[in-house]
């Protein structure tokens, strides 16, 4: 199962996992911070690729998962690369 972790920066420079976005049956299910889950579900994230709509939502599945790291890269909130869970 493919998934992406969202990391939040703490005052001491450490990072904690704010949320985990998992690809389940073609859609992304978000576990963890409810505000983050609501945010991406309601407002979506920007699509930086040339393919598809301007914004992606969890329902867009892998396309959404692939774009997370381009959208969350401030250092304060970073999205990891896609990992595979066996």
């Amino acid at each position: 199962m493919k998934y992406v972790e969202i990391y939040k920066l703490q005052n001491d420079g450490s990072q904690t996992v704010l949320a985990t976005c998992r690809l389940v049956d073609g859609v992304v299910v978000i576990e963890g911070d409810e505000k983050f889950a609501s945010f991406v579900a309601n407002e979506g994230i920007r699509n930086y690729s040339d393919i598809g709509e301007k914004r992606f939502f969890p329902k867009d599945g892998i396309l959404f998962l692939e774009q997370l790291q381009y959208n969350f890269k401030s250092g304060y909130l970073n999205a990891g690369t896609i990992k595979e869970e066996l």
Partner: protein
Amino acid sequence: MKLEDFFKAVVGSRDGEFKPDLDSDVSEEEITELYDESEKNKKEKGSFPSLENAEKKYSKKLGGGVNESYFVEFTNGEKGVFKPSVGEDVFGKAEPHTFYKRERAAYLVDLFFDLHLVPPTVVKEIDEKIGSVQMFIPDTEAYIDIEYNENKNKLREEKSFRDQMKTLWIFDLLIHNSDRHKYNLLCSETNKKISVHAIDNGCSFCEDDFFFGPNEFFDEDFSEDFIKKIKRFLEDDASQRILENLLNELLPEKEVSAFFSRVEKIGNMISESGRISSSDEWEIKKF
């Protein structure tokens, strides 16, 4: 030439600043000297020695993000987020490996308009990598966290917060930011007053589509203080020239030129009517 004319023409006048003897005559050499001093001051204003000259104590590579980022602590106690050029991926319409320069350029615009939204940001070499270092702001929450907090959400309706958000909206329009989502806007609270901090400004100045996630403020009056700041910059030829030179060191000429066109267009709208009309939406969001 009288000193008064010099100040009107080159420096502009600011309340509480240097009060010259306006009736005295000055020589061309003195004018040049004053102008050079003015330029030097502005350039010094653009610098932030406690970050620029700071020595790294330790750095930690942060997980995630398409571009590399590091949490850095300096021996003088300052902390920052370092984004090296070599760690940048290529995406959007910005020239490759220029995100760190855009971070710095956004800070300079904030500085020259006196907005206090962007944490101090410098270009610096750390561990033989050139990149941007932005001062770390501790104890912050993302804008979305404020929206979802019942008590703090009320603070969003207060004038001081709305004024900051209006300022941010205009700032983002000026730098043509394509990435102001609600996690690239941090909030900190002091004495029940929220301050906003505009971070991750790398996707600015280029031809990507403008994007501003929070509410926009069409047909709403801006504060007198903000209008004054806009007017002051529009009337201050010297500051404009210095900012232009500084931006030209960081951005393609076409982007600097587009920035100053937006400054003129949006600045004039604000200084003439004190607001932005919804009928101008398409016009102000153009590159």
